[in-house]
């Protein structure tokens, strides 16, 4: 039981969940038990804390990803060590874009989403990692309570946000690349990595790294097991592409009510696209090649 709980705590640390909870709600409390875990018979406060924390953890993870794909002057770019004074993906509101698109419009059935989320929360089999001091002091019983809360969260009719599922995978990969990423600035281990470390973490996801696959795979019901490496490969690529597409689109300044722009999109400013706003045509007609307007069979 104790071994199992230690493994569970490992997962909660590696995925960033425990650290995020402590960062958001604090570790200190009577008897070293955090406030959200003071009533062992009542999971409701734990689940409430979990829900808020998981959303923030997911957003923080995407912030780390967005700065990685299109750096700017933001703190996430600074933290990765690749930065530029000119606005990048964070300024283009790409984190909102990613979370909204993935959670609201990827039509993955809830059953599948929860299966992947549950597998991530269930399946850690890799070597233990050093537990940072501020988390090591939290009693194992809290881990158990948190574990139950996660089970309740994923097994009851709650739909786990898909953005969180991807974020958990990124954070697990991040800790595999650099175990020290379990603590520090931000909520997300992925966001704490350097640019080069992020490359390594993404390589693990996109390459369907065997350890990562095994982590998820073992806990999945049939027939999901055979598909997980393919899905990781797809997701690994899609995470880059969606950030890139969203950052250079009009999303950040598009008013859905009027379907007009409220300002110049960051990506347009970066690329010099449509310098005077959208046009209906360009003075770009250069005639016909060799003057030939038609050919025959």
């Amino acid at each position: 039981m104790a071994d199992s709980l230690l493994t569970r705590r490992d997962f909660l640390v590696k995925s960033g969940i425990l650290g995020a909870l402590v960062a958001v709600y604090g570790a200190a409390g009577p008897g070293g038990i955090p406030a959200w875990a003071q009533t062992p018979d009542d999971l409701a406060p734990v689940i409430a804390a979990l829900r808020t924390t998981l959303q923030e953890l997911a957003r923080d993870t995407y912030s780390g990803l967005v700065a990685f794909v299109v750096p700017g002057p933001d703190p996430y770019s600074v933290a990765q060590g690749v930065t530029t004074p000119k606005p990048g993906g964070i300024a283009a509101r790409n984190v909102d874009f990613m979370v909204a698109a993935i959670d609201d419009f990827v039509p993955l059935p809830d059953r599948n989403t929860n299966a992947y989320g549950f597998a991530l929360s269930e399946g850690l089999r890799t070597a233990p990692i050093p537990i940072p001091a501020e988390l090591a002091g939290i009693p194992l019983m809290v881990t158990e309570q948190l574990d139950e809360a996660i089970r309740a969260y994923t097994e009851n009719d709650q739909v786990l946000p898909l953005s969180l599922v991807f974020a958990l995978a990124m954070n697990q990969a991040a800790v595999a690349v650099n175990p020290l990423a379990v603590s520090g600035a931000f909520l997300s281990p992925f966001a704490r990595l350097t640019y080069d470390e992020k490359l390594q973490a993404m390589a693990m996801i996109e390459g369907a790294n065997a350890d990562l696959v095994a982590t998820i795979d073992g806990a999945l019901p049939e027939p999901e097991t055979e598909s997980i490496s393919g899905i990781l490969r797809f997701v690994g690529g899609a995470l880059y592409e969606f950030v890139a597409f969203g950052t250079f689109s009009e999303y950040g300044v598009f008013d859905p009510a009027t379907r007009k722009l409220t300002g110049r999109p960051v990506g347009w400013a970066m690329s010099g696209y449509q310098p005077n706003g959208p046009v209906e045509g360009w003075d770009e007609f250069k005639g016909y090649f060799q003057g030939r307007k038609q050919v025959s069979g």
Partner: protein
Amino acid sequence: MARDVIIIGAGGGGPVVAKELAERGLEVLLLEAGPRHGDPEKQWTHFENDANNPLTGFFRFGPADRAKPAWLRELPQNSFLWQLSGVGGTTQHYYGNNPRAAPGAFTGYDGADKSRYDTAHLFPFTYRELIPYYEWMEHTLPVQTAAMGTKEETFFRGAAGIGLPVNTSKDISRPSFRPQENAILQPGGNAGKTTDAAKLVYPQATGCTFCGYCFQGCVQPRQAPRNLKAKRSTDNSYIPMALTAGKWKAGGKPITLVTDAFATKINTANEGGKLVAKSVTWRVGATGEKVTEEAKVIVMSAGCTEDPRLWFNSHLPNQNDWVGRGYTDHFFDWVVGLMPYSTGSAKGVGSSARADFPGYGGLENVGLPPAIQAFSLTFSDQGTQGGYTNGLGATGKWDGKAGRVNGMALRELLENLDRLLNVLVITDDDVEAQNRVTLSSVFTADEHGPVAKVIFKQRQRTARTLANREYLANRAAELARAAGATKVLRIGWPPLILHVQSTMRMGLSDTNSVLDANAESRAVKRLFVADNAALPNGIGGPNPTLTSQAVATRTAEKIFQLYFGGDPWVGREAPISSIDDVVTAAVLGQSIKPKAPAVLAVTGSERAVPVAIGAAALGSAALTAVVRRAAATPVESAPAEE
């Protein structure tokens, strides 16, 4: 009352069959799962996320109600399936490129390079047989020689620089380059000459205004009647004709178009020991209601991914196990050159220049607005440049290793958007059983049944496919350098499943094809396929739409002959163009006298020629000459009696 024909899917193929059979006076019902954008000037914007976000955009594979999620497919590998619902299908976002196929992809081809093609999966008829149907399509859409912008001048400079000659024919016979033959109306009036929106309104401007929004849907020139929009997607060409068929052609009958109607089952009956298609069941998106209607003939035109899904969900026979197999996608790749001068990359038609390499495939230039440009640079199966290779990282005539561009390097290229030359590598890829559509066992069924799973084994493709792709990627890099590029990158795309072909393939052999040479199902009579899925192969690499539509025209004729006792018309009548004044008047609801069939004037020995259409023995040159001579002198005559 049973319809004559029910067509499932109003994309690139379905509307062609619909218009042709409506013109013959048949009672046609055309079903479309997505919406119809009947007033695109109001319904569309020029914005990339609003248009092209594959989850939320107005061009997505999903229901008409954009508040609802997109429809699901399983892609168990790094890849991207760019499917669209809605009237027009993927022609809504296409670039209108309409080259003819490579003749080597057809049976009967006897060129010196015949062994260079996918000879195990050839067309079940000759290239010559298809030519009259090409000509019919080229007149109807119409297809014209593309106008140039700066980015085309750049591509031509590069193509000439690597020693390619110019092709001045519609047919492909040797390695060469040329402007695209495309379904984009050539610019007229102010079009292409100004950025002043007030001067770019029809009729002051006609044809293409060089707006650069092909991928976001063509509404140019503004205020033009729907059938005179520059880009000839089926919602601008064949659909307006099909909806008004009785008005522009005597004896025609307008089709019934039902949108928000997702076909979920084809129902059959056993008649005289044969399985026969009888009716179609569809789900009404807005209400969830299921509707079933009978028809004498049913045509599947739901696309390469949804046709097999519908087949499987209808529990139709799959005796040789080829339903859904043989998916070809031209295994695209992407080479980008950074030029020391402006290329006008985001201006004008998406692509107006190409180079053909018979037996290998081809290259074309592509100009893009920034979001899709960024997508194109990050879409890779070969890792991230400067970081990791994902086990590949190919080297060649480009700089460094192939892979996606990320971080500051991505910023650098996007900051030079106006100086990019994108070259799309279009591989002549082999039909392979392993690349396929099946049903997902992982994802739960949606409201239309079990969902499609699209499998591409990109790293285990045939040696010819992989070698063709490497060859073309190297030619693309050389072309970019010859045009002056200071930096050339290869991205190493995973499958971008966008030129889709051959999942319900026609074929010579019943051991590896689903359809016979008439595009009728071998297993279920009165059931035809008329879209890219029916193509026997990847047509040698050229963009597939024209060939798919020419085959659909031929299929419409076969349906009319086999099940409605009619006569063929291609080569016997002069086609009516979708931009003909009589069609414009019909689209505008004006009172007009419909055209009688314009029978081709053939005399003496030539009179026998149309009768011989379809005979492989007939030389195309003779037939073409007859059609061309005759088309110049159409003769009005009374409509044929039904």
